[in-house]
């Protein structure tokens, strides 16, 4: 039996951890919000500035999700990453297409795949377990729960960062959670029902 031990979200230019606001400024456009949220977290990771909005969103959510270093005791190979979204990398693809009318930007090109955000998070947090990225029309709690359960059932598996990281222009919707085989933190049962409750609860706040 796996448990949801922590959550993080970014919606309506509000960054939360376990439902508690970490940073909020709805008056900013999304690119500026991302920079200000990064500054507020006082992370020291210059690569952040080079990331596309999708990776920046995933980075910020993962920073607060894993702020207490809950994975420190696990071997890197014991922690996996399972992400999903609706728009893949279309936000950056569009920017790259526009930039390509003059001289294509190599720095933009490297972000024209949705799973680049997974790579950024694996590098930042030293995750070396399985990673996967699914594109679905909407957050599919049943599919995510089922896949993460399979990952956590593998021999040696101990944790999995999972959830939804979506962006298209100003639209952004991020819901990450940490699933572990240990009963700690939020200690909610890792079920599709719980995930739906946590995810849809964000919309109601």
């Amino acid at each position: 039996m796996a448990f949801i031990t922590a959550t993080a979200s970014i919606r309506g230019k509000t960054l939360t951890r376990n439902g508690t606001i970490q940073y909020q400024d709805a008056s900013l456009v999304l690119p500026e919000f991302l920079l200000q949220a990064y500054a507020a977290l006082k992370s020291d990771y210059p690569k952040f500035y080079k990331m596309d909005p999708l990776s920046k969103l995933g980075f910020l959510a993962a920073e607060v999700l894993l702020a207490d270093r809950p994975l420190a005791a696990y071997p890197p190979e014991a922690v996996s990453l399972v992400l999903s979204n609706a728009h893949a990398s279309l936000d950056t693809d569009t920017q790259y297409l526009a930039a390509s009318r003059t001289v294509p930007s190599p720095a933009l090109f490297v972000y024209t795949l949705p799973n680049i955000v997974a790579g950024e998070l694996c590098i930042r947090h030293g995750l070396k377990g399985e990673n996967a990225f699914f594109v679905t029309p909407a957050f599919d709690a049943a599919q995510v729960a089922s896949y993460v359960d399979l990952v956590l059932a593998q021999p040696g598996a101990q944790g999995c960062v999972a959830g939804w990281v979506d962006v298209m222009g100003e639209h952004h919707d991020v819901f990450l959670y940490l699933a572990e085989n240990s009963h700690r933190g939020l200690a909610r049962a890792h079920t599709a029902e719980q995930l739906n409750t946590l995810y849809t609860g964000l919309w109601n706040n």
Partner: protein
Amino acid sequence: MEQLMADLKRQIIEALNLKHLTPAEIGDDQPLFGEGLGLDSIDALELIVLLQQQYKVKIDNPQDGPKIFRSVRTIAEFITAHKPA
């Protein structure tokens, strides 16, 4: 040369999204890769694009890249020597 190096520092910060740096924090002879500014291979490609767009200068021999991109000063020297009249 001094003005060119000052321009290059601003353009490098803009092109490579080095928003944590100011031009004053980049030394004229500071190594740009490795232990210096820590630029990577994608940054090198962006620098090539920058030279083409801003100065109409192309690097014909890729083997010369490490020498040309060693520092802001070496880039400025390359531009000065190869910029179209």
